[in-house]
């Protein structure tokens, strides 16, 4: 993949990447930084992408790792006693964006990709390296915790 080809595909994927990063990190500037970082790491690792048609799910995986790194750095900076502990019944009382950010990681990544970044069930499964069935069950659990009813024509 040439540089121009890489950046051409990146340009198409940017809105998806930004929305994903925003839902993970909660701020516009942090999301833009994460997209920059993922774009750079993607460029460095572009030779590992064997099927360019799966570019968007591949770069999404990189972005999620970048976001998780950023979240881990935030946790290291936060004293233990300040870490929020979220009981199942508390999600209801939180604004939706906060509630999503407090979901367990395996549920959060599914609901962000499916319902905020606009990926299909198949694309989400590929991005996360999971079977479709696992994605389906996790998104159900996540939506139940969030008290959010959304239709899924793909199930």
């Amino acid at each position, binding site marked *: 993949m040439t540089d121009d080809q890489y950046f051409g595909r990146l340009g198409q994927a940017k809105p998806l990447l930004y929305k994903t990063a925003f*839902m993970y990190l909660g701020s*516009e500037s942090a999301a833009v930084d994460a*997209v920059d970082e993922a774009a750079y790491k993607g460029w460095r690792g572009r030779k590992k992408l064997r099927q360019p048609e799966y570019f968007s799910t591949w770069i999404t995986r990189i972005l999620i790792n970048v976001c998780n790194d950023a979240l881990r750095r935030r946790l290291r900076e936060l004293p233990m006693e300040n870490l929020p502990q979220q009981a199942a019944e508390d999600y209801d009382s939180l604004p939706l964006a906060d509630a999503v950010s407090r979901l367990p990681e395996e549920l959060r990544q599914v609901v962000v990709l499916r319902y905020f970044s606009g990926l299909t069930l198949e694309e989400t499964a590929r991005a996360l390296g999971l079977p479709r069935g696992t994605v389906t069950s996790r998104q159900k659990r996540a939506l139940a915790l969030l008290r959010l*009813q*959304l239709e899924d024509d793909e199930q």
Partner: protein
Amino acid sequence: MDRYQEYQALAGRLEALPPALEYTEQRVRARIAARRRWARLIGLPAGTVAALFLMFVVLVNASTTTAYAMGRIPGLAGLAARVALSPSLSAAVENKYVQPMELSARDDRGNRVTVEYVIVDRKQVNIFFTASGRVTGEIEHTPATDNCVSSLTSPREDSALYKLTLDYLDSDVPAMLDLTFLAGDEKLPTLQMAFDPYFTQQGRVVVLDQWIELGGQRILIKDVEIYPTHVRVRLEDDPANTMWLHSLELTLADSLGNRVAAVKNGISASGSATPFMAVHMLESVYFSGGKDFTLAITGAGWLEKDKERLAISTKTGQADFLPRGVRSISVQQTAPGLEVCARAELAGQGMRQIFYSLCFDPLGNEYNIDQWRSVMVEGDEALFEESFTVEGFEGEYILLQPIETAYTSLDRPIQIDLPRQ
């Protein structure tokens, strides 16, 4: 709002992509270019500091986004010690909102100028340069526009760093500026400055469209424009008003307790065809971190529409009226022309200009006042004196144009909350 409505609102909000996202490719390409250049450096002899420095200078010169991407700008920490910075520009420097330039021009007469940095946004360019020889900061630039006003700040002691500010009043800062510094009657080679589009995109407009009543006049607060270098408050007036608004006592505060007031060194207000000052400038809140802002108006200076010209007898010194805060006016006919001297009270901002530079004789002939003198009155700390000579003036009376004739002071400020963006 139920959960589904929350979801729709949040999903809708995500559709609005931030302007910074548009330049992801640019920033990443700059990192890639830097990586490739540093990789070539590995082959240089160890300890070749000069070569490394040269490579860094070439780096920032070749790619204006490189320093931003690298997050390191040499010499930035000492900038404030070399030239006076406004609170807005100090905040910009602290946040590394600076574009290095390293552009030089020289001639064989010992005249030299080096543009080291710029701080630029959609409406203002601040050019930091060193100069030697006969270079004083006088410039020509293209594209030229009548809407651009320049102001120069001299270096601090023991420094040679000047700051030249270009304020674009109606149009935007161009993507590129050709700058020619003058050295006396000579011109140095033209410098071509390309601004990083990331910086020239910065700024947001908060629309208000709110009428207020102030001093018995109606003023429309159209919008507040927040840029990294300053804030602009744009107004319109009601044609039925009996006075032109000239100055505003205005502050902008955020929810974190940060408060900014009018720009002190530079353009503080601008107008167009009438004496109404439609745009008022404040220091910036761009880097404050606050989200909720409140505009507060505590006073206003006016020019009454039936007092736009002030007649003063050149024989008796008798004036129709006295402008705002003026205690006395005296005139004296001399060989060069007519000397005019006005004593006035200091206002909050200190000495101010009392008259516009254009005046008239009884036949309607125009005279331009080229030089003013403003000094404190000896023995009275509350008064200052503005004096000037209208060269070649003859006539029974002179018509001067006062800048302000009335003032409104509010015990309770008018406060306007800006809608959250």
